[in-house]
């Protein structure tokens, strides 16, 4: 189950960002990304909400609250990166710091708050993945 979920994350999350690349390739104006992202989020929302509704599931206060927190942090991160880029910091500096840094923050929280312990292969995989992600950002 876990392996399948990891493969699913790898492929679907990887492909999810490809649309902006396609739009850039079509030579459309920068402002197109706003209606694009609105439909992007709405499409994802319907895809998950529909089966939920058919099963008779409802949103509770916990989901609404933490969903709001997640949405705010996601948009906060995007705005911070956009400000950095528009201030003249090159993309090959912004993306590795933002992405690599976020992995470091989650690893720290995982250890200190959630008590996660790593065995040697996982720790090595994490270290190599960290460098790999930073290099992908640089490339």
């Amino acid at each position, binding site marked *: 189950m876990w392996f399948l979920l990891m493969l699913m994350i790898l492929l*679907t999350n990887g492909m999810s960002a490809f649309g902006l690349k396609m739009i850039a390739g079509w030579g459309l104006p920068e402002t197109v990304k*706003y209606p694009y992202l609105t439909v992007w989020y*709405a499409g994802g929302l319907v895809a998950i909400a529909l089966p939920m509704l058919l099963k008779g599931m*409802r949103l509770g206060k916990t989901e609404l609250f933490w969903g709001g927190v*997640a949405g705010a942090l996601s948009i906060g991160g995007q705005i911070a990166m956009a400000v950095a880029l528009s201030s003249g910091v090159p993309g090959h500096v912004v993306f590795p710091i933002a*992405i690599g840094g976020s992995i470091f923050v989650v690893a720290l*929280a995982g250890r200190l708050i959630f008590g996660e312990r790593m065995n040697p292969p996982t720790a090595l*995989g994490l270290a190599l993945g960290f460098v790999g992600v930073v290099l992908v950002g640089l490339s």
Partner: protein
Amino acid sequence: MSLSFCFLGAISFGLLGSALKAAERRKANAAGLVVSAYAWAASLMLVRTLLLKPGGHVPTKVYAIAVIFGICAAVASLAFQVSISIGKVTVGWLMMNLSAAIPVVVSVWMYHEKLTLLKVVALGLVLVSIVFLFWGQVVEKRAARNPAGRG
């Protein structure tokens, strides 16, 4: 000063991963959480879109790919949220970020982008990292099945 916004972005995204784990610890329903997060984000993006100057034409193909890739993103978010209830948030979060290698590979294939040495090294490291992460999970499963034995 500008560079501090990069670190602010890192902290924001890092806290996002941690908040999703905190929600899981509070028994938030995974699908409900994704629906809620996407509803908030869609609403905010809609407001931003409505604030744009009118007159810009958006081709239908843009909406078509938005739906397809939006569904991909929601499936990834749901898979991540389910995965952190049975595995580590650090590994799940790393996997979300390792997925950045997929557009690089697709771009090389679709747009014939140049495969530089840096890209080859980065993709190689991503691949080796995934192998180690999967190996780590196998070791952990074995240890859980046989707590008295050695890993």
